[in-house]
Every structure is written in C-alpha cells, then in structure tokens.
C-alpha cells in the first residue's frame, strides 16, 4: 500500500456546498488554537453558519487537542461525529484520528515525513503537504517555524475549502495590527500554504464553501464573555471568585469590560491622572470566601456575583443554604465541567443539576436558569440579578464548558435602554416613617416575599441576619410552629418564582406522539435530531427547559405525550430525576438518552439513542 500525495476520487463524492465537518488534531500549546479560530471566524465572515468546538486537554503544553469545525448552511452546527476532512497534525494520535474520517473523506498530513503505511486507508484520500519543511526553509527562528506551521496549514485549508482568502488575510491583518513583523510572517505562511495547495492539490474539495448572507445580524461569541456582558449591564458592582476552569474567563472578561466601561479618569490636584472604578473584584482565597463576599455585598445593597464550576459549587454548599434561609440575593454562574470530583476540567457535562437544585443541608431549593447558548447567557445573567433581588435568594445560572468556552454564532445582542434593575422589596427611611414596626420576615406579598432593608439606612430597619432558627419577626426561635411558619413560606416563595422565570421553549410537529425534553447546550443537537427523525417518519415535539422550579407548561407537556425522552449530558439522568421529584410525573413515561463522556452532544447521539430505545 502506498500513501497518496495527489488527490484521487476513491469514493464517489458528491459536491456539497456549505455542509461538512473538519476535525483538526493538534498538540496543545503549539499555537494551533489561533489558526483554527481564524478559519472558523473567516467562515463566519463569509456569512455561513459555523461552529468551532475546542476539545482540549487540562494541560498547558504537549498533550493532544482537537478542534472541530462544522459548517451548515441551514444552521445545524451542533457537533458532527463524522468528519469529511481530518487535519492530522499530531503524530501521537495519527492512528486514532485517521479512523475517524468518514469513508470517502480526506486526511491532510505533514508530508515532511512519510506517513506510516499502516495508517493508510484505501477509502480515504491522503493529502500530503510538507508543512514543516516549508516552514524550516521560510523562517529563521525555531519558535516561529513551529507557530507558523499552523498558519501554513490554515492556508492549505483556505484553498481546499474555498475559504475567501481576502477575508482570511484581513483577519490576519487585524490580529497583528500592532506588530508588523508578525503580520508579515503570518501573511507569508498563509500564502505559502495556500499557494502550495493550489499548485499541488485539486482545489477545492468536493465539499466546500460558498458565501452566504446568513450571519449579517449575528456575532461570534463564547458564553463566558456573554455572561460577563450580562453582569456588566445588570449593574453588578462587586464580584468575588476563585479561579477554576472553565469559568475563569467569565471574570477575566468582566474585569476587562469594567476597565473599559466602569473606569473614570480623575484629574488629581497635582496634575496626575488617577482613576475611579465603579466596581470591585476580589480574587478570593477559595470558593467559600467568594460566595461569602457575594452574600455580604448583596446584604449591603450591591449587585454581586461569583463564577465557578462544580468543585466550587460543592464548596459553596453551606453558604448557599445560608443565603436561602436568610433570604439574601446572590448570583452564581456555574460553568459546568465533567465530574465527579476533579473529573475532567476541560470537558463538558451537565452534571451539577441536582447538586445546584438542592444545594446545602436541610430543606433547601434554589432558583436555576439554564441558558442554551451565549445569547441566552447574556439575557439570563441580567434576569438572574432581577430574580435574586425580587425573590431574595441565590440564583444559579448553569451553563457548561461547551457554551462557556466555545465560540457560537448567535444573533447580535440587544439592550433596552428603558431597563431598570428590579431591586425587589426594599424599604427606605421614608417607608419606615409610615410603618408601625418593621419585621424582616413578616408582611409577605403575593409571591411570599417580605421586605428587606439595607444597612446604613435607618435604625428602625435594623435586623439581625441569622442562619439559626428564626421566626417571622427575625428573632431566634426553637419553637416548632414558629420555625415551620418561615420555612413553609420559603417553599411557597420558591414555587411562586416559577411564574417569573423563563418558561420552556416548545417546538411542536404534526402527528407527534413522542416528546423530547432537553436542557441547556443540548438544544441545537436535539432540534437537529428532531428534524432528522421527522425526515425518517418519526415526528417528535421538543421542549427545552430553561429554569427551575418548573412551570405548569412543563407538566402539561409531559402529560400530553405518551413517552418523553429526556436528553441530557450526565450519567444519572439528573434532569429526569428532578422532573420526577418535582412534578410527580409517572416516571415510566420518561426515558433517558444520556451522553456524558465529556464532548459536546451531536444530533447523531440523540437519533441513535431514541431509535435504539424504540427498537430501531
């Protein structure tokens, strides 16, 4: 068997425009991420729906890392599982990578070294480009040779996939606008790859791109950036956090946004310019401290939040129960990763649903929001602050690594300048003037919320926050009836919040008797699966849950279908358990499709899961 350096049509390949998937296998820490991101952004700028999934290790340099680009003119950009083209740039994983290409697909490899004959497949086409050799000849410094190899293969892909070279060149110019030397070398590497491919390979491949106009009103953004923007626009002034993958970039982004939008230059008397910051971000000593700070700041009337992941939620449990029982607002962003324990920090999962719903000892229940994409991260971050203050309780926004750290094409974010924060029931001195007496947990409204006061306002509003047993006047109690009166109201308050939280998104089809229920980042894959199932004669209705506690529509959806599949990314069917526990639905009605290996969900998982369960 020989390796092939020229393209051959080994399988009859139909021409497919704007519908393919490319997987790039790299070594992490070698600069591949920026080259891969560049390609994805260029496709987005060509107006074509695209996604990029970074499947990276918990490591700084040397381990295998993959990047998947899926292009789909119809907008189905969940993870693909069969790849038309594998860019095999990591010798450590060649063997496995080559097997992942679909029959009739292509492998691009660095032909500076001959490919091991044992890797060859006769149903795929191998495209060799001597990338290392080209970069060694073109560039002087070892580091430059290594980094620019990535841009060089990007150039090859530009030719193979018919990516607009001008768009890519513009992106390179923008990226290195402040460094002419890098700009020049990157442009040179890009052209080198591009020209080589045009000269030696038959370009474009049967699957390739053609410019569209489907992303004009869209942006390319990751969920953590969008969440940080939401916190900025919600008026958060205090943030406390402890660094943890994959949530770190929430606070990194919030910090840089604050530096731009919350910093005022102040001219000092001595002529020097100083700054006034309308924010305060504390990198705490641990997650316990982070939530303690958030509760302290909210108690004092600031909008404050923290961002964390599963291990942080575990540490915050005690204070989550405290916040619930003492009725102090708090916003937590949980960017879920794979558990249990340390788990796989750079892999995605939806494994914190139950841990968050009932976090802490004793009878506790929290308000949860489940955004499905970065656009909802922005929206839900703002709503989280309103809900936390209106219901005086912690609100947890559960995103995940797929949403938080990958770039998604979503509609441009919009802002209503008429928005004003919902501070909930807060009494001022003027309110206290006309009251006989203030009691912290008395005088509930229709949503079972009682008014609070801020420290520093008025002595008549002073009360004593305590996590110990208390009566509706805020006083210490160990008397059963008085204790129960308060915790019973808390249960009613939790239930009442459902009506103020985002309800499920339901997508119905004619003749559907089966329901599919899902949550968060599963959204796109599940909706694509519903299309595929419909096309093969199995119409299903889809409901995506967006918050907890559940609304009446959630119960109604389950009641209206004889079988519901619950699609989620954890081993123990946590969403299904929560539905059974909280709605009393007949659990035999709910079947699970569970994908929890750590990589984002694909429509194929869902179709196969449902088909298998139904017996083919």
């Amino acid at each position, binding site marked *: 068997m020989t390796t092939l350096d020229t393209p051959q049509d080994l399988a009859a390949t139909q021409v497919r425009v704007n519908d393919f998937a490319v997987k790039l296998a790299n070594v992490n820490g070698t600069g591949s991420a920026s080259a891969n991101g560049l390609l994805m952004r260029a496709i987005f700028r060509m107006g074509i729906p695209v996604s990029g999934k970074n499947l990276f290790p918990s490591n700084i340099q040397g381990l295998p890392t993959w990047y998947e680009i899926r292009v789909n003119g119809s907008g189905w950009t969940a993870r693909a599982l069969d790849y038309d083209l594998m860019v095999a740039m990591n010798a450590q994983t060649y063997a496995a990578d080559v097997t992942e290409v679909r029959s009739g697909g292509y492998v691009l490899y660095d032909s500076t070294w001959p490919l091991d004959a044992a890797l060859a497949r006769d149903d795929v086409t191998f495209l060799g480009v001597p990338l290392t050799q080209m970069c060694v000849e073109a560039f002087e410094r070892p580091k430059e040779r290594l980094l620019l190899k990535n841009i060089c293969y990007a150039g090859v892909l530009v030719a193979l996939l018919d990516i607009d070279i001008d768009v890519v060149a513009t992106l390179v110019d923008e990226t290195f606008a402040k460094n002419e030397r890098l700009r020049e070398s990157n442009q040179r590497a890009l052209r080198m790859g591009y020209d080589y491919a045009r000269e030696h390979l038959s370009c474009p491949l049967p699957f390739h791109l053609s410019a569209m106009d489907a992303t004009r009103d869209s942006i390319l953004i990751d969920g953590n950036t969008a969440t940080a923007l939401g916190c900025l626009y919600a008026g958060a*002034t205090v943030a406390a956090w402890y660094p943890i993958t994959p949530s770190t970039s929430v606070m990194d982004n919030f910090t840089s946004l604050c530096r731009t939008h919350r910093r005022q230059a102040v001219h000092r008397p001595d002529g020097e310019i100083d700054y006034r910051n309308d924010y305060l971000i504390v990198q705490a000593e641990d997650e*316990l401290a982070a939530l303690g700070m958030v509760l302290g700041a909210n108690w004092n009337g600031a909008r404050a939040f923290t961002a964390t992941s599963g291990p942080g939620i575990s540490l915050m449990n005690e204070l989550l129960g405290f916040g619930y029982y003492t009725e102090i607002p708090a916003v937590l962003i949980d960017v879920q990763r794979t558990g249990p324990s340390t788990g796989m920090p750079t892999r995605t999962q939806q494994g914190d649903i139950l841990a968050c719903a009932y976090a802490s000892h004793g009878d506790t229940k929290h308000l949860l929001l489940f955004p499905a994409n970065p656009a909802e991260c922005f929206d839900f971050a703002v709503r989280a602050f309103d809900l936390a203050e209106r219901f005086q309780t912690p609100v947890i926004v559960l995103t995940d690594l797929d949403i938080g750290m990958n770039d998604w094409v979503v509609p441009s974010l919009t802002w209503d300048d008429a928005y004003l924060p919902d501070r909930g029931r807060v009494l001022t001195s003027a309110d206290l003037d006309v009251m006989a007496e203030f009691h912290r947990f008395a005088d509930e409204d229709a949503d079972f919320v009682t008014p609070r006061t801020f420290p520093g306002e008025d002595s008549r509003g002073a009360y004593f926050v305590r996590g110990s047993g208390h009566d509706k006047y805020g006083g210490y109690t160990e008397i059963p009836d008085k204790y129960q009166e308060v915790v019973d109201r808390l249960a009613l308050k939790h239930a009442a919040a459902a009506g103020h939280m985002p309800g499920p998104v339901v997508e119905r089809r004619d003749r559907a008797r089966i329901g599919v229920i899902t949550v968060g980042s599963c959204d796109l894959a599940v909706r694509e699966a519903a299309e595929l199932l419909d096309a093969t004669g199995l119409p299903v209705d889809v409901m995506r849950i967006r918050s907890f506690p559940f609304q009446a529509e959630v119960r109604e959806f389950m009641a209206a279908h004889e079988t519901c599949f619950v699609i989620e990314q954890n081993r123990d069917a946590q969403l299904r358990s929560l539905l059974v526990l909280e709605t009393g639905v007949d659990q035999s009605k709910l079947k699970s499709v569970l994908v929890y290996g750590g990589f984002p969900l694909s429509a194929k998982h869902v179709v196969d899961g449902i088909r298998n369960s139904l017996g083919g």
Partner: protein
Amino acid sequence: MPSIAKPLVPLQHLQRNDLGLTVRDYEGAPSTLCGGCGHDSVTAALIEALFKLGIPPHKIAKLSGIGCSSKTPAYFVRGAHGFNSVHGRMATIATGANAANRELTYVGISGDGDSLSIGLGHLAHAIRRNINMLYVIENNGVYGLTKGQFSASADINSKSKKGEPNLLPPIDPIVMALSLGATFVARAFSGDKDRLIPILQAGLSHKGFALIDVISPCIQFNDHEGSTKSYLFTRQHEVTATDFVPPREEIVAAVPDEGAISVTMHDGTAMRFRAVPEGYDPTDRQAVARFVEDHRARGEVVTGLLYADDTVADLHDLNKTPAAALASVTYDRLCPGSDALVKLQASFR
C-alpha cells in the same frame, strides 16, 4: 449572663455623646451567655467604646461567625444591622459587605475556634487585604458551645476541665497577624475593662484591619487550675506592653511628652503611647513580634496596643473605588447602554 431586659426609662441621669445618645442607645438584647463569661465584659466594653466615639448606630454593621462569641452582636447596638453568618466565614461576609459600602463601621466578633481553626484562612486573607474593620477574637482556648474541646489557641500542656493536657502547639493570632502584614494588632484582657475600652476605641478608629485578641475566659470549661486562659492565670501572667491615649481623647497634662511615641491616625488625630517599655516601638513590626514571642516563651501574656500603622492602603484604596458606597452608585452610571453594546460587538464579528 441570663438577664432580663433593662427598663427603657433610665433610672439615673445618663451622659450623652456628640450625637445626643446615651450608652443605652448602644445596648442590645439581653445576653444569654453564662454568668461571669468574659464575652459579656467585652460586649460591655464595646458598647462603651462605640458610645464614646459617637458612631451613629445605623452606621454600624455587626458581624460574626458561629460560637459563643458570635452570639454577642445581638447584645450590643440594637439599632445596627447584624449578621450572624456561618462558622468561620465572617471575614468573607465582612469583606463583601465592606466592598459594597465603605461608609459603615464594621465590627466583627469572632472566637478562637471560629478564627483560628475553621476560619483561619479567611482571617489571614482579610488581614492581607487590609479590610477596614474591627475584628475582635474573644479568645478562651476552648470550644464552649460543644462543651470543652481544646481550640487552636490552647497552650501546650494546658489542661482541660477533665485534666487532660493539650499536646498541640497554639496558634498565636498576634504573631500570625504581624507576619501577614496586619496594620493594627492589639491584645487585651476581658477582665481589665479600663484598658480594653481604649484599645477598642483605637481599633474602631484605625483605617484598615484592626485585630484585637481579647483573652476572655470561659467560666464553664476553661477557668480551672492548669488552664492558661483562666482569669487567675491571665491576671498573674499579664505583661502590659503599652499604655496609650486613645485617639480623639484629650491628652491629659500629666502625660510627659518626653519619650512618648505618637502614631498619627487616618483622621489626623494622634495616638500617643505612654508607659512603653524601654526600646519598645509600636511601629517596628519585627521588634514587636520578637517582644511578644520572648514573653510568650516565658509563659507571659503580653497585652496592649502592640502595633499600629495607619498609612497602609485598604481594600478600597487598592481598587480605587469611589469615596461613597459602591452600592450607592446609580444604575445610569453602571450600565454602558445600547449604543455601547452595538459598538463593542464589532469585536465579535
């Protein structure tokens, strides 16, 4: 001490402070601690100190963790908001509260279990951040509410009520705080109200983290022979390092200027030390640490305002926050608005 509420109408003429308030306005609910508990003396001294400084009750925020000491914020300044948090986490709540509103006077009350075991990490980091607050450790060397276990401040070979010796070395909050860059460090004895009140006043006036370790004997579980946190032991082994004139208090003519050391407080007032031992300098961190360690090695308990530096940046200085409370910044100043959102999204194209 279990007691009944005092009558609202004072039986005698009470002195009024600058706000026209009496000491009664700084009192709280009746204590439910044991009769003779050192913590009640600390509460009484704190009431006196807050009254003397004339801080408006509603501008005080009282915080605590869990334990006997942490119950006490209920027993002073009923007109102040109080926050009885969870075990060991008071410093974190205070940090967040202070971040949101720098205009209040923060009074944190903790114990040796709360601060030196479960909450040690938080205490250490609050010191590093120089949170502007008074942080009192009511230190009795024992877990009272769970009936007599040793705490991390118990000295080696000090005896429990049942006669068992403590085998582990103690954590001395004074020495630890000095090593962490604390800007105000003092130790007092709950049985010596005359010295405790001015130290509390000084701590309340300090800009930054004021740590006061108060030896406050547990009458039930750690006031016996063999204890090194008992009333008797403390009286017999106390070495008062410093005596000083609290800030904002008139310096009486009897105090000689010669040899006195003066520390300028943030508000410009001077705090003058007197009766300082030969060579003692309350601004020399290393020397103070050595002095405390030397005496500890001899089994002595050093009390007094041991170290003070009012010139160090606090959390807000470091973060360049506005002079007024962050929580009071109006929303229109916080939200960049729709135009800015359109503009900044250009970078997401």
